[in-house]
């Protein structure tokens, strides 16, 4: 569809520039690994659990090799060396390691080829499990059928058992997608908490056990409702790829997985983030998990009218990084938002322009459309009205992942009734405006068409300048969300390691080979 009459040449130029930008960063990515990448390798070989002090075993192993061995070769060879030297299987090896009976890092290292052979039974098993999960998801989705626009709500009580109750209620009320928001502070933990958790702030800890509980609960409602209910979590922060691995193993369906969000909004080091995002996206590509990107957040710190082009430019960049990680367009849930100050005249038309433009530029991407948040205040009745307008824009421009706005946005994380009222609002609008998209076109040269044209032109300009200086420098200059981050600043830089020429990551080697 080309209702906006957008210039296809400008779009093609944007794509080309974005790919150039991502190519540069990929030169860097492929020369490095991180502690979280290596921990992910442990996890996908089947290493899980914590020691008696509660430290996750992948952390123990990777830190140990970092201290005593040479992590630049990757954890794979060290595990293979341990297996070869002891003749044990991996489970027994980890047990003996925990008891201090064997050390990792002291044995002679096998070759790359030998390592792949020694570890094959382990990664083949987990990769098979991930593929089975993918098949299971596809079967279930086929069985139930899928809607073009899916209703997405969050739960965030801090207690996974309470979350389950609320998630089920929301699914029964009509939600198709449930996201369990993470506790504050989790993104800065350089490990993934373990087990079922009941205390979080502003959200609930992402743990594999919590994933499993929620997955089972949603499958149960899905059966009763005859609808697939998708589960969302966050592969962001210092443990991006580990979360992706856990999500792949527990059949999560969508992960927040932006290439730059951590840098901009959590002050995580940019080198660390880019390396981690690649591996996490590779896992998502393999697992068939839809990624969601976080451009919507830019508009919480920058003005949505002035900075709309930064959202589009970032979508192109996120798309390029996704392609590099072998994610097909069907898995690219690029983000954007309805965040213009409603005091602005014709703000609704500008919102339509932005949303329609995203739809037309990324026609097969399951776009994630975010509701108003910044210009919501304590007047819940006005908020409900703003959300109705947002819902109308969503239906009219055929967005895919419809994140519902809450009337209590400015007050607290949603109450059960807030979510219900939001779902009712969205359903009413979906019904009332079902065929609106086919019926209405835009005035040539009018406000909507001109706005989209100018945002696209400005995005092209921005991409051009980022291409010139490189993305690292652009982030140092603060092009996105007005936030400046130094190349060597932020959290997690100490976990970045330059790869040895003999570096091996058995998981990515295998995934890349299969996805190519």
């Amino acid at each position, binding site marked *: 569809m080309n209702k906006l009459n957008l210039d296809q040449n400008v779009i093609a130029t944007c794509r080309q520039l974005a790919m150039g930008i991502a190519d540069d960063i990929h030169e860097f990515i492929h020369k490095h690994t991180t502690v979280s990448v290596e921990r992910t390798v442990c996890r996908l070989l089947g290493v899980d659990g914590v020691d008696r002090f509660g430290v996750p075993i992948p952390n123990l192993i990777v830190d140990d090799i970092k201290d005593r061995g040479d992590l630049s070769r990757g954890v794979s060879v060290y595990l293979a060396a341990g297996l070869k030297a002891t003749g044990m299987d991996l489970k027994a090896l980890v047990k003996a390691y925990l008891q201090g009976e064997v050390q990792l890092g002291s044995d002679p290292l096998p070759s790359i080829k030998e390592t792949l052979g020694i570890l094959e039974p382990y990664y083949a098993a987990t990769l098979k499990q991930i593929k089975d999960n993918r098949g299971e998801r596809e079967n279930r989705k086929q069985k139930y059928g899928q809607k073009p626009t899916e209703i997405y709500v969050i739960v*965030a009580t*801090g207690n996974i058992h309470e979350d389950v109750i609320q998630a*089920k*209620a*929301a699914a*029964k*009320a009509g939600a198709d997608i449930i996201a369990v928001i993470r506790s*504050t*502070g989790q993104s*800065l933990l350089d490990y993934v908490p373990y087990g079922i958790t009941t*205390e979080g*702030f*502003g959200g609930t800890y992402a743990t594999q056990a919590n994933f499993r509980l929620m997955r089972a609960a949603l499958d149960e409602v899905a059966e009763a409702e005859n609808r697939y209910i998708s589960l969302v979590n966050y592969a962001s922060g210092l443990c991006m790829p580990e979360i992706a691995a856990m999500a792949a193993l527990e059949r999560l369906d969508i992960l927040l997985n932006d290439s730059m969000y951590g840098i901009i*909004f*959590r*002050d995580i080091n940019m080198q660390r983030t880019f390396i981690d995002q690649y591996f996490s996206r590779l896992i998502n590509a393999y697992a068939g998990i839809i990624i969601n990107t976080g451009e919507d957040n830019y508009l*919480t*710190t920058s003005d949505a009218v002035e900075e709309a082009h930064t959202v589009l430019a970032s979508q192109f960049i996120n798309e390029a990084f996704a392609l590099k990680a072998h994610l097909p367009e069907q898995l690219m849930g690029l983000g954007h938002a309805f965040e213009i100050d409603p005091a602005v005249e014709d703000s609704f038309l500008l919102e339509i322009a932005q949303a329609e433009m995203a739809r037309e530029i990324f026609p097969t991407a399951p776009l994630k459309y975010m509701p108003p948040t910044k210009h919501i205040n304590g007047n819940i009745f006005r908020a409900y009205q703003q959300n109705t307008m947002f819902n109308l824009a969503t239906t009219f421009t055929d967005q895919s992942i419809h994140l519902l706005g809450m009337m209590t946005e*400015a007050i*607290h*994380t949603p*109450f*059960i*009734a807030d979510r*219900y*009222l939001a779902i009712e609002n969205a359903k009413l609008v979906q019904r009332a405006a079902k065929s609106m998209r086919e019926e209405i076109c835009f005035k040539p040269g009018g406000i909507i068409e001109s706005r989209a044209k100018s945002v696209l032109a400005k995005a092209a300009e921005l991409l051009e300048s980022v291409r010139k200086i490189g993305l690292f420098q652009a982030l140092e200059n603060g092009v996105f969300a007005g936030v400046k981050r130094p190349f060597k600043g932020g959290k997690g830089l100490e976990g970045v390691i330059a790869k040895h020429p003999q570096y091996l990551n058995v998981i990515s080697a295998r995934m890349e080979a299969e996805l190519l």
Partner: protein
Amino acid sequence: MKLRPYGDTLADGKVQLSFTLPCDPDATGIEAAKQLAKAMGMIDPGVVQAEKIGEGFGFFIVYGSVPFAIDTDKIKVEDVATPTLSREEIESLIEKELGRDVVFVGASTGTDAHTVGIDAIMNMKGFAGHYGLERYKHVKAYNLGSQVANEEFVRQARRLQADVLLVSQTVTQKDIHLRNLTNLVELLEAEKLRDQVILIAGGARITHELAKELGYDAGFGPKKYAEDVASFAVLELIERKKSVK
């Protein structure tokens, strides 16, 4: 003056209320909602809508009236007592009365990642047409950003020789802000810094009253800007300087 809620007639006492009960909105559920409203003191509550919002949950909207009246003459509000001066007035006060730069150190502390509030007060651009502290003459404003641990915040306060500490807290779920704000006061006391700084908290859910209770000198919530904070801090600094003499 005696106040009662106003529906469509003076002092009719009309109020509206909505809530969820963990039960179906059947006859028993509706009666339960009604009795709840009565227990809150409503007269003749009417459950105008009852909807099922999931398995075993009902949502109720209730209208009724309350018999209470509030005597406004007896109300005492805890609010910052100092007046709000203009930027120019503040600048010249600093120059005349203090004769040196005033150092503000601010951050969104603990695990809180929200920066828009503290930026609104501190950054050059300010917020809603009110310039931030960076724009003020004779003010040195250090904005440390978000997710700053209290220990780090105290270390920086000492290093930068802060006169005024600005702490922003946005996430309040499970009272995390109370714990974090209290912890900072304890740290400052342990470091013998508490009396050497003016300690100010701010955020969407922060009130002056709450801040005072937690051991802060002042608290600022929505619709407060750099000039409100700077007025309070500078007048307080002048006051303290005088009392030392």
